[in-house]
């Protein structure tokens, strides 16, 4: 039998909340699947739609953007911009035919190691039945 499909996930984590939250998950030795490679960005508001499209183009099976909770942004309001932008990106991705579940946004604070763990576990569970993402993938 073929090996079980392991989705590749790119996670854009803001430096102040979500990356710190994922550090806390590590410090607390919580366990989650190794499918995610994190990319630390300064703020979820700095994640351009192009980053997301680029990740799918390069063959990511799922993309996660995670930032501070609304109202708690280290940069005052960056995550509000992220939220609006991401709502549009989600619609656009759906419009071009990508399964909407492949793109997620979450709010994980620096104190929420457990939540980060759950977000990753759930995301992997959602992506596994979908199989590899080929819709936007382009051979390099």
């Amino acid at each position: 039998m073929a090996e079980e499909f392991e989705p590749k996930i790119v996670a854009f984590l803001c430096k102040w909340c979500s990356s710190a939250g994922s550090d806390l998950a590590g410090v607390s030795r919580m366990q989650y699947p190794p499918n995610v490679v994190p990319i630390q960005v300064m703020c979820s508001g700095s994640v351009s739609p192009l980053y997301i499209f680029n990740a799918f183009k390069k063959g990511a099976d799922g993309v996660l953007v995670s930032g501070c909770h609304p109202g708690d942004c280290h940069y005052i309001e960056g995550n509000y911009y992220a939220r609006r932008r991401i709502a549009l990106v989600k619609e656009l991705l759906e419009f071009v035919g990508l399964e909407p579940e492949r793109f997620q946004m979450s709010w994980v604070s620096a104190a929420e190691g457990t939540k980060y763990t759950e977000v990753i576990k759930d995301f992997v569970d959602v992506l596994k039945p979908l199989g590899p993402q080929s819709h936007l993938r382009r051979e390099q």
Partner: protein
Amino acid sequence: MKKRTGVFVCHCGINIAGTVDVKKVADKLNKHAGVDHAEDYVYMCSDPGQKRIEEAIKEKNLDNIVVACCSPNLHETTFRNAAKAAGINEFQCEIANIREQCSWVHKDMDKATVKAEKITVSAVERVRQNESLEPIGIPVTRRALVVGGGIAGIQAALDMANTGFEVVLVERSPSIGGHMIQLSETFPTLDCSQCILTPKMVEVSKHPKIKLMVYSEVQEITGYVGNFKAKILKKPTFVTDACTLCDECTRVCPVVQSNEFDLGLTGRKAIYIPFAQAIPALYTLDITGCPGLMPIACGKCADVCDPGAIDFDMKPEIVEEEIGAIVLATGYDLYGKEEMAEYGYGKYADVMDGLQFERLLSASGPTQGKVLRPSDHKEPKEVVFIQCAGSRDPEIHCAYCSKICCMYTAKHAMLYKHKVHDGQAYIFYIDIRSGGKNYEEFVQRTTEEDGVLYLRGKVSKIFEENGKIKVWGTDTLIGKPVEIDADLVVLAMAMRPSEGADKLARTFKVAVDKDGFLAEAHPKLKPVESVTAGIFYAGAVQAPKDIPEAVAQASGAAAKAIGILSQERLFHSPMVAKVVKNLCTGCNMCVDVCPYDAISLEDGKAVVNDVLCEGCGTCSATCLRAAISVKNVTPQQIYEMIDASVGG
């Protein structure tokens, strides 16, 4: 010229090497295009580890390095300094977090190793496009803001002012002094609380470096460490400086309101001075009770005021202050009576809280220090003290221990016995927590010398019968129920953050913990710092604590603030936004989204103010033409990192 990159993979003992095959990671990186050197070592952060990095940079002529190790929050500075020591720019060093975000969260060695490789390659691709940068120096506004005029705020303000820095001390009530000025005596020395606090209050009022703003509240904070701007609302007192403190106004004022200083045990007029030693000595007209700010409604105070100090037209005022550092010291309130109905608090006059009992004991209190119960003004002969009222009760009240109640209850019982020799004091307790210098000895004294009876157990019911307060409880040490006909019951109520602490946290952009106290930056190593640079905590705003601890933390916060104020310039990260002029169309979108107003248009092109820019990158995600990006996190770098993350 081709850049030469070095990679250093840390074992962190077995913290990383236990789950990640570090040799394999180093081997893989050695074969990676552009990597000229890769090695692994047991502890990169150790002195020999750092030496290896420095030597490799020099010997292999490396342009930039990646250290694959723990979170950048821990050792980024260590390795950047090592890079600097070896002669390359500190921003030519990046960290690949393969511990917190990899080895500690996975068990499968093969998969964790592959992931660690990806994370490291991603950091390599990033660092190869890093610019060499120098920190940006910004001048510091050498003044401090202290919020809260209790003992913690007073101490912090005095420490900073005595070091030579100007301090703006903001207090929302009409006088400084906080809760400490309400106390009778302090444990374990039985010092008179007012006698030891008032000299400090006077020093504040006379200090040439302290600008005292009472009856004021901070409404807005903008800026950043070293250069904050505060908007402070000065509420109108309706009494001008012409006031001669003759007290004629309070004599004629027809309105009686609950007196906050005596916690409702007495009344005060609508126009009042909070207490005799109030600083500043100023009358305040409280409009919540005043029938109307015009002669037609009442105006009796204005009629009798010879110097004409009553000004009904006084308006609220917004004062703007520039400061470099902030100390938050807004203290605590006691748990509310509305939440403690089970002990009859708020229902029976002779059930009171600890602060009210302080006022009963105090020489400046409603009874001049005689212990008389509120209902009939008789001397209570049987007094029951109940500890942990609201504390250590995760089911319905606060889960935490309020820390000071064991000690002040012992003090209450002792002082009661000193005043009522033939009285009996009972204390219901769960545990006695008397950690602190001379604290345990003090508790022993209450039982041995003053005959206070400690009963280990909780009170199950309190009700009134025949003019007595019936207290039903259990003594768990002898396993029997206890019934006491008390004349007075004193509840050692839980401490909680003072009212409005949540709003304060939002105004100053600091975090709150699960109990509503302000969260410190690190529970062990940064107990005085908030998560926001330049904002520090003093006293019970951070957690329940007693006077010496609050004073110590205040001095700590002052020292931290002085650490900022004493510098000519502060350095701020040079990872700021940069505009590619010929791509910019002057559409203004980045100007609109910048949370710091750091971008402006000059001659139709965006220009970034490096000092104001915090490097969040909101502009770069907004720009349609990729004309603006943050240095060392450019879209090109992110694309390379995505490649590394997905590839393989």
